[in-house]
């Protein structure tokens, strides 16, 4: 059974009659790491939010773990990470990670055990009692990832989580994310506008184009795991980067052709 199964999905925003997404068909299998990549305005973040039942589609169906998306949300089937880490200033790092566990009604002892495990997973042991604003941007993002994975959701949705970070931090966090993904065995849907990031991380890169937002191509990333710094220097890595780039340009050429008509 697919973790995410999207059929004939269309999203039209009421204001301005904008077609954000058109005829999206996509199936994501358990354990996959799927990137949604495309220019701004291609609807990749909208698609992520529709999978997460934060936005309602205009037509079509979205099934998560064989259930309609609203049911999956109610069942706590996914964790989400935004570009902004969305940590609450009035909570310590530990309490931020514990937030979903509180909402699930876990008792204090169980919460503490899990929070300690999660902080160890993202290598932030000893920072539990810090306030979020005392941490660097990269550390804040690791706290957000720990929070999203704390209740072991089968699906992790990430909306340009490293978009606001510098290149060095981003590359380090990319490697950490792969390590966490392999350890947690969850399925990841990852929105990005970085070709390098999409190729380095994903099992598949879903290339999208804009106006209307649609899937232009799906590139299988057949680089072996575990991937590391050396992966970025392999010929196959460059071939795949080129392939994704060409798919993106083909998509935008299509845009222009449509605009000319």
């Amino acid at each position: 059974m697919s973790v995410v199964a999207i059929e004939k999905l269309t999203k039209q925003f009421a204001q301005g009659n904008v077609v954000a997404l058109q005829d999206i068909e996509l199936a994501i299998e358990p354990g996959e790491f799927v990137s949604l990549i495309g220019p701004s305005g291609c609807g990749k973040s909208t698609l992520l939010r529709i999978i997460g039942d934060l936005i309602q589609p205009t037509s079509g169906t979205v099934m998560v773990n064989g259930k309609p998306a609203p049911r999956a949300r109610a069942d706590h089937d996914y964790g989400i990470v935004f570009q902004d880490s969305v940590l609450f200033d009035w909570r310590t790092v530990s309490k931020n990670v514990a937030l979903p566990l509180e909402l699930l009604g876990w008792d204090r002892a169980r919460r503490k055990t899990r929070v300690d495990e999660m902080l160890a997973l993202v290598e932030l042991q000893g920072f539990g009692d810090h306030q979020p604003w005392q941490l660097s941007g990269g550390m804040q993002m690791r706290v957000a990832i720990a929070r999203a994975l704390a209740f072991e959701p089968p699906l992790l949705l990430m909306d340009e989580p490293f978009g606001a970070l510098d290149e060095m931090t981003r590359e380090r966090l990319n490697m950490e994310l792969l390590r966490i993904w392999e350890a947690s065995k969850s399925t990841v849907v990852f929105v990005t506008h970085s070709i390098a990031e999409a190729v380095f991380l994903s099992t598949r890169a879903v290339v999208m184009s804009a106006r209307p937002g649609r899937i232009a191509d799906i590139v299988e990333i057949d680089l072996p795991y575990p991937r590391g710094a050396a992966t970025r220097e392999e010929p196959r890595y460059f071939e795949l980067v080129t392939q994704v780039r060409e798919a993106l340009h083909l998509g935008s050429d299509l845009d222009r052709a449509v605009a000319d008509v």
Partner: protein
Amino acid sequence: MSSQPVAVAPVPRGALSQRVGRRALDWLPALVVLVVVLVVWQESIALLHIKRFLAPQPSAIASTFWDDRGELLRAGWFTFQEALGGFVVGSALGILAALVLARWPRLSRALMPYAIAASAVPIIAFAPITNAWFSPFGKTSKIAIAAILCFFPVFVNTLRGLTSVRPSSIELMRSYAAGEIDIFRRVRIPTALPLTFTALKIATVLSMIGAIVGEYFGGDFNALGVLINSRSATFAFEEAWAGIGVACAFGIAFYLVVAGLERVALRGAPSTED
């Protein structure tokens, strides 16, 4: 009534004395200004032959205060109780109204224009009216005017805090299938607290103003506003000034208590201390 708010957290002995020492040093410039102002005031009145009814000497005010301290402090306490009552009632209603309007934004769109218009009204002008609504000699009329004064800043600030939550925070909570009550408890209310406390501090001042001005239009024989009013009318200016001093002391103490509560409630927030 002169006790300073004490340090909240237990601190090692050496560190505490260091802290107190640093505190004292922080306050030194302000203390110097106070002493200079009092000395200049005291001396200029004698030197320039300023009439007693314009401004008595601080030393005369102080000695009058000492002679009448029982009556003055009783009057101050009486008026402070009215202010406190108005503060509690007005702030509670303000917070409650903000919670209701934040929960039902449609209601907010209907009512906010009037709330904003009402908050621009010089409410103190209603003081004689509240005296007519309730007995002018009882506490209720002063509590009413103080409550109306406190209501608007607390209401407007709290509502702004409750509704200025980042959309991504709400999306995060919704992704956990959190309900409205959880979103209020864990996101909206903590976001609003700093703004609410700012308003509460303003409200302490407003409540004292409301109670005293209300008393100018009539009140209990024991009330501070009545005392200040009647002493000025009978040329007992030193006593009137001493009454004003007592009003200031109660007002400042009230403010400091709420500021202290704010520090306790908002510890950990980036704005309080570094």
